[in-house]
């Protein structure tokens, strides 16, 4: 018993001494580390947006979005601090997007990709492919930007992540793409739009009355009946109720729901539907 007590006390004393040493060191180094990270962040901010005057940070789905203002309090762009999982571990990076929604820069903060193979993501040649692309451009791996052979995982996950972040920025901060269409800016009238559906085109007619979305009719559709019944009339009702296009799509009828939404988007003038607007005003 006495022996066990002696062993425990020795261990406890050593642990306590270690802990106090570590606490002391932590209190010395922690402010320096925090300060340095912040400086790095500000420097990156200034590299991408030389006219930055102020910024505020918002967090969406675990990523940090820094909204950059110039001296006139105008938004000049967004810098996202985000991460993705590459081949060797987490890749942390900044993605800067200007007011028009175009990528103006990528900076890898940290990564653990294979030296000589996966670390191609830090190379200018890989990153330059993205510069100037916007949320409207398709960023499709292997088509619009090159996957580097041998580094499929590293480059592929970067491409996917960048494409996602750009769309999030356009949707949340630049009022484009996605759900935030300003109906009050659209003149009253009846508009039509079509998108390609499962077995043919899907056409909707929408009516705007004094800045409000009043009516959504499906003029033509060739969707699978069992799925379409899930999406219609519920999806149009939801859109009208919310006065926004970022509704939750119906489980089991995701495709049909999304098609209705994008057809409405296509119909409205000045919107940015993926299929190119062919809305007609009456």
């Amino acid at each position: 018993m006495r022996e066990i007590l002696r062993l425990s006390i020795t261990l406890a004393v050593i642990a306590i001494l270690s802990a106090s040493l570590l606490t002391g060191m932590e209190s010395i180094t922690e402010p320096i580390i925090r300060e340095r990270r912040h400086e790095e962040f500000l420097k990156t901010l200034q590299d991408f947006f030389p006219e930055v005057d102020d910024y505020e940070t918002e967090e969406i789905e675990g990523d940090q979005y820094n909204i950059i203002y110039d001296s006139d309090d105008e938004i000049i762009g967004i810098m996202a601090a985000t991460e993705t999982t590459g081949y060797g571990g987490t890749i942390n990076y900044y993605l800067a997007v200007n007011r028009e929604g175009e990528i103006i820069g990528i900076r890898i903060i940290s990564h653990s990709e294979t030296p000589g193979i996966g670390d191609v993501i830090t190379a200018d040649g890989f990153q330059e492919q993205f510069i100037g692309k916007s949320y409207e451009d398709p960023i499709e791996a292997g088509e619009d930007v090159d996957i580097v052979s041998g580094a499929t995982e590293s480059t592929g996950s970067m491409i996917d992540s960048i494409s996602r972040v750009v769309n999030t920025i356009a949707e949340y901060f630049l009022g484009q793409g996605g759900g935030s269409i300003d109906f009050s800016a659209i003149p009253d009238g009846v508009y039509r739009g079509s998108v390609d559906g499962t077995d043919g085109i899907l056409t909707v007619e929408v009516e705007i009355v004094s800045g409000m979305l009043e009516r959504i009719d499906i003029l033509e559709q060739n969707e699978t009946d069992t799925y379409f019944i899930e999406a219609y009339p519920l999806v149009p009702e939801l859109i009208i109720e919310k006065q926004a296009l970022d509704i939750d799509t119906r489980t089991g009828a995701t495709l049909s729901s999304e098609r209705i939404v994008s057809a409405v988007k296509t119909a409205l003038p000045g919107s940015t539907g993926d299929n190119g607007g062919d809305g007609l005003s009456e």
Partner: protein
Amino acid sequence: MNESNIYLQDLTRGIVKENPVFRLLLGLCPVLGVTAFFVNGLGMGLAATAVLISSNLVISIIKGFIPQRVRIPCFIVIIATFVTVIEMVLEAFQPDLHEALGVFVPLIVVNCVILGRAEAFASRRPVLRSLLDGIGVGLGFTLALGILSFVREVAGQGTILGPDAESAVHLFGPVFEPMGIFAQPPGAFIALGILVALTNVLFKRFKID
């Protein structure tokens, strides 16, 4: 053997004759893991040396208080403390190196060179000898990492003092096609194998032992 001779021996033994990497093949995990660039290899060596010296010193000082039956947990706690201190210092003052060494800094805790010296040397010897032993073995470890990472960076990247683009010196001009395998883990084994063989040849040739 007179007294100063012992001390000199403690200091130099670890550098060449019992070099932890080339002669004893100890602590190979960081040796293989972080030696793609010379700067990183050297940084790793110095970090491990700092931990080794501190742990040797402290363990030698308190060896009288540590009961035999719990000595290994005590050593590990002490080593882990110094490793964490080093990690915090690196992150605060050498962020690029900290980033490059990554998970290998916390892994110094289980580096068998350090625990080996604590168990085999510092826990049985006087303070000064343990200190000298820590310095010597640490230098030997750093030397080995430096040589290995030098070879790997020159062969695998064609540069020296990378990966920081500002300090990197390209040695062979643009036509040189680096041997990419040396930058990767298999290349670490190959380079280490060649260097160990070379050391053995030299030791035989000059009859050191």
